[in-house]
């Protein structure tokens, strides 16, 4: 086959892939919008659910989801930054780097339901923390830790050596260089990773359904040790009553709300990354 033809075929193939994936994406969005929009009005967004979700709104589900991912972000960020700095600035041995990488990628590869079981056994049963949203936050923090750590690591590690040397040459200590030069420049990477991680965490059902959520009868928690209701677990509960058209309608509405939140976090991540490009990429 001649080379030009091969090139052309390859170009077509990539185009088909692009068109296919965007079509699927828009089809999904379209269906959710089409079915979800009729459910959404001010009452739906501002009222508590009643009748097992078939009537009322989803205010506590939104609040529960946002609260849980917010705290998971707070728990995850310092650990991720610490690991990233250690890996980038202190760890010299190539072997240890390889081991840490393997650990990070393995953690990322663990199916989310396993995190749920782990949380159930360790935090709920052994440590006796009960079914509470803070346990859910801890588990979600573990889940997004690899994403946030790697994103932070890459943005710190890609800062050119000359910035480290220029500040060391002025008499700064290594710790001052980390605090004054590397962290400010690497922080955007941490936030980008965090937003991507949160976008993923807010949609997770399996890891939190046994350990952090209740399906009905919960309001905004007044302590760390109460369960909350969240959007994904609410959708799951509503889908189980799919024969009831009101429940189904609300399931679509909740789905639309959830997808909106995911898109919001993803777009913020994108905007943040574009706005705060590290020096190395200029």
């Amino acid at each position, binding site marked *: 086959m001649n080379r030009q033809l091969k090139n052309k075929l390859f170009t077509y193939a990539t185009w088909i892939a692009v068109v296919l994936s965007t079509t699927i994406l828009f089809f999904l969005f379209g269906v959710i919008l089409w079915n979800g929009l009729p459910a959404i009005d001010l009452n739906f967004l501002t009222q508590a659910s009643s009748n097992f979700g078939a009537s009322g709104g989803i205010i506590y589900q939104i609040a529960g989801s946002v609260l849980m991912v917010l705290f998971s972000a707070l728990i995850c960020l310092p650990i991720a930054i610490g690991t990233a700095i250690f890996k980038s600035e202190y760890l010299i041995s190539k072997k240890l780097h390889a081991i840490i990488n393997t650990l990070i990628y393995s953690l990322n590869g663990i199916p989310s339901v396993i995190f749920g079981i782990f949380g159930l056994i360790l935090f709920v049963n052994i440590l006796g923390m009960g079914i509470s949203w803070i346990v859910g936050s801890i588990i979600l923090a573990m889940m997004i830790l690899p994403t946030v750590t790697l994103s932070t690591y890459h943005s710190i590690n890609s800062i050119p050596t000359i910035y480290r*040397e*220029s500040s060391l*040459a*002025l*008499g*700064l*200590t290594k710790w001052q260089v980390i605090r004054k030069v590397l962290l400010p420049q690497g922080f955007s990477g941490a936030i980008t990773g965090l937003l991507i991680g949160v976008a993923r965490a807010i949609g997770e059902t399996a890891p939190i359904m046994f350990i952090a959520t209740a399906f009905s009868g919960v309001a905004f928690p007044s302590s760390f040790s109460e369960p909350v209701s969240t959007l994904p677990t609410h959708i799951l509960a509503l889908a189980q009553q799919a024969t009831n058209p009101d429940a189904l309608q609300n399931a679509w509405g909740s789905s639309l709300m959830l997808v909106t939140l995911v898109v919001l976090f993803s777009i913020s991540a994108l905007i943040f990354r574009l706005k705060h490009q590290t020096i190395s990429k200029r």
Partner: protein
Amino acid sequence: MEQQSLKSKLSVVGKTTVDIIKLEGLHVWIKENHILDGIDVNIPKNKITCIIGPSGSGKSTLIRSINRINDDVDGITTQGNINFNGSSILTSDTDIASLRTQIGMVFQKPCVFPKSIKENVLFGIQHLKKLSKIEKLQLVEQKLKTVSLWKEVSHRLNDKAISLSIGQQQRLCIARTLAVKPEVILLDEPTSSLDPLSTRAIEDMMVKLKEEYTIVFVTHNIQQAKRIADHLIFLCDGKLIEQGSARAMFSCPQNSQTKAYLKDEYCAC
């Protein structure tokens, strides 16, 4: 006649300056490679010492050993001794951060921090000392004047430093180093990425600065060394070929390799 020449020789000896830095048998290896092979040199106080030599001869490695910025290079081993003001700086209990405030460094490529011009001047000193607002402003003005940048930037001190031209950025880097008040300033080919005008400005600045500071200036440009050097160190392939007063070395080099290099920029070693 004889007596007179002896007298003039004596007077030269009498004027001999103090050596602020002495390298004794300095060896550096990076992994398996022997980069510096037993270097013995002196850096005279309040003079400009130029280190010349072909690229890859170890000039950067030598100068970077003096403020121990080489410590962080992967796989480096250093042997021998470096004396600064009479005490060794290669011991394990040397306070490296404080050493670097006494021996500052300017790099080949200017590296400004993503901050304002003013903050860049203050970047090093503000981590060492608490300064009042007035002291800060005075320091910024004084140092920017020293590097002849004040006229150009006095009206936009809060602009991002990155908005300056490369030549201006390099002068800003020098101002930042001066603000820490070191005794010695190491410069590793500071003009090699600059235009001729900025290069001349920096050369003139060095000649003025040597009254207050000791300057160690790496260059691969022989004409530049000729213009500014008081003391000359010629390295080739990790070895010291010759050192001495610049005037003597340029007029009658003792070593044939030095002669060839100064004449044709060619070194057979």
